[in-house]
């Protein structure tokens, strides 16, 4: 029977990134008279890891919040497959709920505890099911937040500078964990960050946002990155790496 199923598979599998996780066309977002995003188009496929770089105030967090459905949009269209999951810069764990209750917040399934255990095990905290958030370190709390996002099996995972508040070593460990988890769960990922190296390490594709638009787009060279590529990204961001005259 399994052989039959095998035979029915198409010769050339559809690459996962062709299945849309989110598709944005002509997005417009403004606060009063100040236009933050104007005519923005974006496509992220399932299993694709996209990093969004930009200076503070360029509208990258505004874009993420619009994708998350947290803010109203003034024009254009956002088509998300299902409800996106978000990991914020702060862990935002509920201090009055233990870890498994936190992880399953908003999840309506019969065996919530079992699902939480599986998710917490994936982030290396399977033994802390009944522990309280206040007993966690910053990195551990952020891992629980990651488990809470992934337990929903989202088609789109939005990461809003989730590693910014962590120390350097913890951040490196988190990078490996996130890459691992994304590979296993295959959501489309949008990582908002201002860390160029983080973007290169984690993403398949890097977008640079400036003045409310996608100003540049590059496939990430990953481990085969060069100082020149890094300089080019920084130039896209409007940061000069050559000495001033």
């Amino acid at each position, binding site marked *: 029977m399994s052989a039959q199923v095998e035979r029915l598979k198409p010769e050339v599998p559809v690459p996962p990134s062709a299945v849309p996780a989110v598709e944005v066309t002509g997005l417009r977002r403004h606060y009063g008279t100040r236009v933050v995003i104007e005519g923005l188009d974006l496509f992220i496929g399932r299993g694709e890891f996209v990093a969004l770089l930009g200076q503070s105030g360029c509208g990258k967090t505004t874009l993420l919040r619009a994708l*998350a*459905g*947290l803010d109203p949009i003034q024009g254009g269209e956002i088509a998300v497959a299902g*409800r*996106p*999951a*978000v990991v*914020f810069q*702060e862990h*935002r764990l*509920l*201090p*009055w*709920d233990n870890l498994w209750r936190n992880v399953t*917040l*908003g*999840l309506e399934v019969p065996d919530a505890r079992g699902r939480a255990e599986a998710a917490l095990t994936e982030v290396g905290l399977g033994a802390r099911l009944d*522990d*309280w958030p*206040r*007993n966690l370190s910053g990195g551990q709390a952020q891992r629980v937040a990651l488990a*809470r996002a992934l337990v*929903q099996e989202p088609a789109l995972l939005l990461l809003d500078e989730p590693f910014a508040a962590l120390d350097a070593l913890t951040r490196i460990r988190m990078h490996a964990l996130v890459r691992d988890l994304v590979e296993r769960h295959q959501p489309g990922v949008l990582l908002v960050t201002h860390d160029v190296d983080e973007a290169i390490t984690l993403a398949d594709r890097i977008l640079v946002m400036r003045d409310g638009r996608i100003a540049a787009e590059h496939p990430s060279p990953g481990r085969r990155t060069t100082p020149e590529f890094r300089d080019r990204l920084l130039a896209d961001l409007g940061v000069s790496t050559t000495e001033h005259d």
Partner: protein
Amino acid sequence: MTAVERHGAQSYAAGATQRRLGARSLLVISWIVPVVLLAVWEAMARLGYLQPHVLPAPSKVALTAWKLTLSGTLVSNLGVSLLRAAFGFAIGGGVGFALGIAVGFSRLAEAVIDRSVQMVRAIPFLALLPLVIVWLGVGEGQKIFLVALGVGFPIYINTVLGIRQVDPKLLELGRVQGLGTWRLIRRIILPGAMPSILTGVRFALATAWLALVVAETIGSQSGLGFLAMDAREFLRTDVIVLTILIYAVIGVLADSLARLLERRLLQWHPNFGGKR
């Protein structure tokens, strides 16, 4: 050289003595003082320095407590008082909580309710007593109303405050996780507001008891206050002192009850629950 050594040894010994005195002895001393005061009071009364109608001996008060308990008078009057407090607390607390929830959630409700409530709150609620007596007489209604009035305000204010203080970032998280209104209230808003609400409950318990003392002092036919006022007629200071002591004990018990609630419901809170 030996002098220095001896000096060192002596000062070490002195330090140790002081440490021993520290923990246990201070506790003992802190209890010795009230016991001594009680003994002095007893001695003064027995030796005739204190007239029985001014201040009866503690032993006499204890004896009176025993007699009144046996005759059932104490228990029945205590029961009446507790019932009044409970009814008043339930009504005042219920109304205060409901209004607090409404105002906490809705700006419209705030516009409609809050200013008026704050204006009424400016009146010391005991000052309303004469008016309440005109409205409701001196029956059960007056007593329960006064308790409810005293309880309603602290519960209302702390409920509103608690809801307003819930971290907006957690509310946002609730929306991201797809919580509906009811589950948002259950999982995030009420637990977040709970420390403040329980502070209100503690205040309200103290106020309820105070309101009851005042209300029962006037025109009661039953209750602890009646017991005290009735005793006044016959210069039974032993009964009066007894009721005062009972008021104190119940006040302490009510406060411990509130603390217990805090420890149970706020286990997660570093300021209330113990380490786990």
